[in-house]
């Protein structure tokens, strides 16, 4: 459980957009996963199955709160804590670019934002994303492609 609590909490946070709901959703997900273990096929990897339960909990929680899905992510204002050097990937983007891109992601409709979050923020593979979101693999591909097109269009217009 220790091994998965980080990724479970981040998954829930990307869905709910706030820490308190994410904590509740991840905890509920763990409890439900435990009581649903008899339905789990041991030949399958555990992580996507567990994350799917957590993601469902997070979606339910967000719906019941009656809020429009909004990730409300904030790019780290400073370099990662602990004085660690920024990753080579992080160095690709200036603060201004980061903030524009994040705003554009936040403007996406929910499914598009979720697929972007799973693939690029949580760095899940295509198959794992499909399992976590409960979609077919083809749906992940097509929604990801549309989400990227929307982002390109949005960023293109913003720069115009």
């Amino acid at each position, binding site marked *: *459980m220790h091994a998965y609590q980080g990724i479970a909490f*981040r998954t829930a*946070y990307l869905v709910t957009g706030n820490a308190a709901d994410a904590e509740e959703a991840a905890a509920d997900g*763990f409890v439900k996963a435990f009581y649903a273990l008899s339905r789990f096929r*041991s030949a399958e*990897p555990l992580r996507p199955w567990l994350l799917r339960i957590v993601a469902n909990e997070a979606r339910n929680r967000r719906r019941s709160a009656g809020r429009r899905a909004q990730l409300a992510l*904030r790019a780290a204002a400073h370099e990662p804590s602990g004085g660690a050097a920024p990753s080579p990937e992080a160095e690709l*983007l200036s603060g201004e670019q980061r903030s524009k891109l994040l705003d554009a992601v936040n403007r996406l409709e929910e499914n598009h934002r979720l697929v972007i979050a799973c693939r690029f923020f949580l760095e899940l593979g295509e198959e794992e994303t499909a399992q976590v979101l409960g979609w077919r693999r083809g749906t992940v591909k097509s929604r990801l492609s549309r989400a990227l097109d929307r982002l390109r269009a949005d960023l293109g217009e913003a720069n115009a």
Partner: protein
Amino acid sequence: MPELERHLTALGATIAYPPTPDLVAKVRPRFAEREAPARSHRRPLALALAVLVLALAVAFAVPPARTALLRFFHIRGATVERVEVLPAAEPQTARDLGRLLGRASAERRVGFRLVLPHGGHPDRVYVLEGAAATIPLRWHGKELLLSEFRNDNALLLKKLVPDQTYVEPLQVGLGSGLWIQGGRHVLIWLDRTGRFREKPARVSGNILLWTHDALTLRLQGKLSKREALSIAKELR
């Protein structure tokens, strides 16, 4: 990777997530409530947590080895399970390590540059299914095996250890690691995509498993934890 995708990955690396709460502590009381609603509410909470850990470990069970699983540990690319009874396995032989190649051929086959001790120039490398490379090393007169594989290609190293074996999660450089000491272990290489699954092999000796950038490394030999960590620090 096209530019927008690279930028999104970069953005992902800078997202300021709130600190992960201690979910174990959070769910512990719920298990206590659900496990024994009619009995004493002072039922030991640790027992409920142990049940949870046990149940999650079952999910990793090797079907023929339906033994009672006690605990598991996981780092990227590797899972370690503690079981009461080891599954049947033959002692590890060179054949279990794969095909013997020169360094350059091995690197071409696995698709990454081998991580080696400073000045190390191995003349032979075993390559298993184009996925894992194992390099025999000599260190202060000790024979060691260093295995390396990419942890993003769904390759999973599954390891089962009996209860008498000590397992300690630790930090190795910037990566997560596990120190496994004592007893005999059963080792299974497999690929989640089903491309291959090696038969279990029994091994002995202490083992350090850790993540190193996109690789998971495994150092096996008659080493103390301090020695293993010192070698790990030297690898480039």
